[in-house]
């Protein structure tokens, strides 16, 4: 893992001191709310429906046990004993007091964490593949790139007041687990024909009220030219992006309105003017950062573990957990495990302080003191020795963290929605809970297979509903909460936006509507097709027909009752 050097340390401490002063000035009245709001947002502090909310950056979703224990301490001391992992691989506390926030920031700085640029119109926390450095299909670990971008973008003087927020995701693998095509900039590490490593650069992806898939503006950018090229992209956006209308201010709108080719030409023109060597990171700095992400000291082991095979044969629950939540590791004898924060009926992404402590112990003991946060609001133990899996499973079970549903229909992404969020138009979490309860039966989940459901409580799409295989969007209609349902969204390398099935429905009807959609899938499915493979083959039409039939039967039922 990356460790702060003296500059990082000083930078973060200075920001805490600055914010402490800003809070003092707010409290003594020398700053008005209008003056203070942009300052608190730049430090991750929002005001939500019931309380302030503090968003803590987890750079590219990588953390260690010491950090998680500190988060547990903060949760218990300054919040209500839990935290919430988000779709941006960050962690949010839902109940901090303004007066306590400077102290919380100091505690975070003690463990090399902060809230800088988790909000506001700046380059946000860089996200990445949760299996970075572990996946077999990886060209190169994306985390050194993400860390380089973190350092470059932190308080970059030119890019702290962009037209709107800006999100960058990096993957080093063939299979995109970082949703790079729905980010403002998506970077994919690849090799060219000569075997050199570089980046494919996509710009202008995003969700929200105007969802767009990113356009590839550079097929292959040599690795050493990354910062200068991104600087050119940011300069074009900073000067040409709209500032007159916040709903049209994201770079996706600029790329869309300008046209992909014209935008590319503008970037190239800007890039030609830049003095690359003064912007690009020196090779020794790139190497210094990369060294922090060297593989841990793996043991030399056989490909598979006889101990684990035997334990699986004796314990069907363990076998199911490994089958569903295990991820093939590049190192023989090791496995990565997804910890789904998705117990049936739980709040997606929530973790209690007690669970944080238990999990910190597990990560420290069994995963080289490292774990990851996924954009699906789950956690990952990246380096578990297969021999240790039975012990890990037992410890996870003890902590209520052994839910064997990673990627299944009950592993649902849900934004905080109207239960917490000041922007939400409808509840999101209770919908996830109701769907999970409907499909709680493990055999049924297994039969349905991989089916990512994603729920947002407003059009801003923090719950990524546009790219859910089934997407659910909560809106307000006629003074009631109303839910629109889409199918066919995909956040992977096959990035696609879901298509609406029909009119919006009431909250109470959502679980049955999902059952109707699943029935359509099981009826249409050929061979071993996953839900998404079926939708890709059939298109949305059979699903629309099934949904319409569901609505009609619902209407008849209501009329019969009425």
């Amino acid at each position: 893992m990356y460790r702060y050097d003296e500059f990082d340390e000083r930078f973060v401490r200075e920001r805490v001191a600055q914010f402490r002063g800003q809070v003092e000035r707010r409290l003594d009245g020398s700053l008005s709310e209008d003056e203070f709001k942009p300052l608190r947002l730049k430090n991750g502090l929002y005001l939500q429906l019931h309380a302030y909310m503090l968003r803590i950056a987890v750079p590219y979703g990588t953390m260690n046990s010491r950090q998680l224990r500190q988060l547990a301490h903060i949760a218990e001391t300054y919040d209500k004993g839990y935290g919430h992992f988000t779709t941006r691989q960050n962690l949010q506390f839902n109940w901090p007091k303004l007066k306590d926030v400077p102290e919380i920031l100091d505690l975070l700085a003690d463990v090399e964490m902060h809230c800088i640029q988790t909000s506001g119109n700046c380059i946000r926390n860089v996200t990445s593949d949760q299996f970075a450095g572990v996946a077999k299909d990886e060209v190169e670990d994306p985390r050194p790139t993400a860390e380089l971008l973190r350092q470059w973008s932190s308080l970059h003087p030119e890019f702290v007041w962009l037209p709107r927020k800006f999100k960058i995701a990096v993957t080093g693998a063939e299979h995109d687990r970082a949703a790079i095509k729905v980010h403002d900039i998506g970077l994919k590490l690849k090799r060219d024909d000569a075997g050199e490593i570089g980046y494919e650069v996509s710009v202008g992806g995003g969700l929200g009220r105007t969802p767009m898939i990113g356009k590839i503006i550079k097929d292959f950018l040599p690795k050493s030219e990354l910062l200068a090229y991104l600087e050119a992209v940011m300069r074009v956006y900073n000067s040409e992006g709209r500032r007159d209308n916040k709903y049209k201010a994201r770079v996706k709108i600029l790329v869309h309105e300008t046209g992909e080719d014209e935008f590319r030409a503008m970037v190239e023109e800007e890039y030609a003017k830049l003095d690359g060597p003064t912007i690009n990171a020196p090779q020794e700095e790139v190497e210094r950062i990369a060294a922090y992400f060297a593989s841990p000291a793996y043991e030399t082991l056989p490909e598979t573990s006889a101990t684990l095979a035997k334990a699986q044969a004796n314990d069907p629950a363990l076998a199911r957990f490994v089958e569903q939540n295990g991820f093939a590791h590049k190192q023989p004898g090791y496995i990565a495990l997804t910890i789904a924060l998705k117990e049936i009926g739980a709040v997606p992404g929530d973790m209690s302080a007690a669970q944080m402590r238990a999990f910190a112990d597990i990560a420290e003991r069994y995963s080289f003191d490292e774990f990851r946060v996924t954009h699906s609001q789950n956690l990952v133990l990246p380096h578990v020795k297969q021999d240790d899996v039975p012990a890990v499973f037992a410890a996870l079970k003890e902590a209520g963290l052994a839910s064997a549903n990673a990627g299944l229909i009950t592993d649902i992404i849900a934004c905080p929605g109207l239960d917490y969020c000041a922007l939400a138009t409808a509840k999101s979490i209770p919908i996830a809970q109701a769907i999970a309860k409907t499909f709680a039966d493990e055999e049924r989940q297994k039969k349905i297979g991989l089916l990512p459901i994603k729920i947002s409580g407003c059009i801003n799409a923090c719950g990524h509903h546009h790219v859910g295989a089934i997407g659910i969007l909560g809106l307000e209609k006629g003074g009631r909460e109303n839910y629109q349902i889409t199918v066919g969204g995909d956040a992977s390398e096959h990035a696609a936006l879901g298509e609406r099935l029909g009119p919006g429905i009431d909250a109470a009807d959502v679980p049955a509507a999902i059952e109707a959609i699943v029935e359509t899938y099981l009826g249409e499915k050929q061979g071993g097709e996953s839900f998404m493979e079926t939708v890709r083959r059939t298109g949305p039409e059979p699903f629309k027909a099934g949904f319409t039939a569901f609505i009609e039967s619902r209407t008849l039922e209501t009329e019969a009752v009425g």
Partner: protein
Amino acid sequence: MAKDHRAGSKVRGDKLPAILMASHLLEGDTVFLSESGWTLDPSAARIAHDAETSAAMEAEGKAAASANIVIDPYLVPVDLTESGLPLARHFRDAMRQRGPSIHPDMGKQAEFAPLD
């Protein structure tokens, strides 16, 4: 997110009776204008039955915001329960009166007597 806050009630039509709701600057809690100052208790909210009172309450809210006591004060149209307690008409405002629906152990619902 498109905006960092969405103040103001979304109720259409008749805006009375009404209460005045805001966030407490220091604590962040939802607070209500009472007969004397601000209260955390949704049952203790002052109720405006006429436009004159609601205008006066709104002015009081703005003054409190200027004095850095509260943030984003706004009038919330309510229905009255049988015992005369104010129940927000819009589900978003009602969520603020109660606390998160997924956590009955948190927020107003955990700290004060229920409104209905």
